[in-house]
C-alpha cells in the first residue's frame, strides 16, 4: 500500500515544484486532447443532431456505423493515420504528383496526433449525441414547428432538451482520448519535448522500471480528468439554473 502513497506524494511533489518536464507533458496532453475534442464536438454535435432527429433512408446503417466507431481500437486508428501520412503514404504521393516537391512532415507532429484523436473521439460524440437527441419527444419538436420555429430554433430547442446527453457526449469523447495511448504513441512517436504526452510518458517510465514516477503521472492524469469532468457537470448545472 505504501507504494501508492509514495506515488501520490511524488505526483504532488512534481506538481508543487513546477517540474518543467511534467508540466510540459501535461500541457501537451491537454492541448492535443482539447483541440481534438473541440473539432470532434464542432462536427459531432451537429452530425449527431441531424442523424438523431431526421428520418432518412439508411439511417439505421449510419447509426450502426457510428456505434461501431465508438469501439475503434486507438492503435488501429494510429496505424491507419500513420499509413496515411507516411512519406510513402498516399497523401505524400498525391502532394508530390500534384504540387511537386516533398510534403512537409506530418508524422511525429502534434497535428498528426490531433487527427488521430479526432477520429477516435468523433464517433463517441456523434453516437452519444444522437442517442440523446433521439430521446427528445417528437411532440416537442412538432409543437415548436407548428408555432413557427425555424430549423435553427428547433435544433436549439432539441439540443437544449437533450443537454445532459450532449454534455455526456463531450465527456465521453474527452474520456476516450485523454487516456488513449495506442494512437498518440504510433503517430506522435513519444518524442521528448515535442510529442510526449502523459500516457506515452507513463508507458515509457513503466518500461524503464520507474514504477513510482509512472504511477505518479497516472495519478496526475486521473486528477486532471476528475477536475475537467467535474467542471463539465458544474457547467451543465449552472446552465440549468439560468433556465429558471
Amino acid at each position, binding site marked *: 500500500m505504501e507504494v501508492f502513497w509514495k506515488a501520490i506524494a511524488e505526483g504532488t511533489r512534481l506538481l508543487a515544484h513546477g517540474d518543467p518536464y511534467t508540466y510540459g507533458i501535461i*500541457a*501537451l496532453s491537454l492541448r492535443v486532447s482539447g483541440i481534438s475534442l473541440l473539432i470532434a*464536438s464542432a462536427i459531432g454535435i451537429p452530425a449527431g443532431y441531424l442523424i438523431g432527429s431526421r428520418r432518412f433512408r439508411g439511417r439505421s446503417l449510419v447509426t450502426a456505423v457510428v456505434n461501431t466507431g465508438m469501439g475503434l481500437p486507438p492503435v488501429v486508428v494510429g496505424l491507419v493515420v500513420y499509413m496515411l501520412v507516411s*512519406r510513402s503514404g498516399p497523401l505524400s504521393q498525391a502532394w508530390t504528383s500534384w504540387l511537386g516537391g*516533398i510534403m512537409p512532415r506530418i508524422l*511525429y507532429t502534434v497535428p498528426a496526433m490531433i487527427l488521430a484523436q479526432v477520429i477516435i473521439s468523433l464517433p463517441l460524440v456523434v453516437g452519444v449525441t444522437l442517442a440523446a437527441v433521439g430521446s427528445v419527444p417528437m411532440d416537442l419538436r412538432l409543437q415548436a414547428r407548428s408555432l413557427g420555429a425555424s430549423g435553427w430554433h428547433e435544433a436549439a430547442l432539441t*439540443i*437544449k432538451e437533450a443537454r445532459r446527453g450532449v454534455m455526456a457526449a463531450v465527456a465521453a469523447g474527452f474520456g476516450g482520448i485523454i487516456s488513449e495511448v495506442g494512437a498518440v504513441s504510433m503517430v506522435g512517436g*513519444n518524442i521528448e519535448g515535442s510529442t510526449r504526452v502523459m500516457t506515452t510518458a507513463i508507458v515509457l517510465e513503466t518500461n524503464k522500471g520507474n514504477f513510482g514516477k509512472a504511477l505518479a503521472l497516472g495519478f496526475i492524469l486521473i486528477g486532471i480528468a476528475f477536475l475537467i469532468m467535474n467542471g463539465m457537470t458544474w457547467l451543465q448545472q449552472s*446552465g440549468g439554473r439560468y433556465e429558471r
Partner: protein
Amino acid sequence: MIDRLRESAAWRLIALTLVFVLAFTLVGCKKAEEPEEPAVEEEVVEPTALILASTTSTQDSGLFDVLIPAFEEAYPEYKVEVIAVGTGEALKLGENKDADVLLVHAKAKEETFVAAGFGTERRDVMYNDFVIVGPAADPAGIKGMTVAADAFMKIKTSGALFVSRGDDSGTYTKEISIWKASGETTPTATPTYQLAGKGMGDVLKMASEQAAYTLSDRATFLKLEGTLQLEVLVEGDKALFNQYGVIPVTDATNAEGAQAFMDWILSDEGQSIINEYGVEEFGQPLFIGNPS
C-alpha cells in the same frame, strides 16, 4: 418570451462548453510553449529535425539521454527526435522513409535492408551482450553454463517457464538464432513457452512475476535489476554478442543530418561517450564501442 429565454439558455450552455474547452486548450498552448522560448532566443536558426529510429531497449537503457544532447551540442543545426520501437518497426519506418537514420541491432536484417537499397550503408557502432536471466532458485539448473544453446535446451527439457519477446525485435531475432543453434526449430507457444509480444522491460517484469527464464540485453537488465527478482545465470558465450549498427536511410528527408549523425557516433567523441556510459552507475559500461 419564455421560448427565447430557453433558447438562449441552450445556446449559452453550448457556448459555455466551447469556451471551456477552448480555455483549457489555450492554457495548454501557453504552457507548452514556455519551455521552448529560451531555445528560440538563443538560436537564430531553427534546427532541422533529424529522426532517429531506434529500439526500445536502447532508449530504456538511458544511453540516448547522454548521447543525443552531446550530438546536438556538436551539431546545433539538428534537433534529434528519437522514435523508440522494435527493430522490425524501425526498419519498416526506414523503408517508408519516415526516419532519417537507424540505430538497431539485428545484423542480418540490417544487411538485407541495405542490400535492398533502403539504406545507404551499414556500420558497426557498439555492442553489448545478452544474458540468460531467471529466478535465483534456478529450477532448470543452468547457472554457470557457458554455451547458451545448451542452456536453452536444458530449460526446455526441464519444463521450466520461458518468456519470449515474441516480437520482431533484435532480442527475439537473437533468441531464435540460439534456438536454431541448439537444434530446435523456432518454438511455438506452449504452456511453458510464452510469446509476450512486448518490449524488453515488460518481458523482464513478466518473467520476474512468474519466476520464469528469459533472454535480455545486459543494459536493460542492469537498469531494471532493482525492480526484478531475477539474476544473470548464463553469460559470456560469443553467441550472446549483441551488435548495434547505424544505417542512414536512402533518400532520407534529412540525409545530411543522417550522415552527420553516423560520422559523429563513429568518431572518438561519440565513442568515448558510449564507453563511459554506465560506469558510474553500474561499475561497468553498458555498451562497448567497436566502430567499423
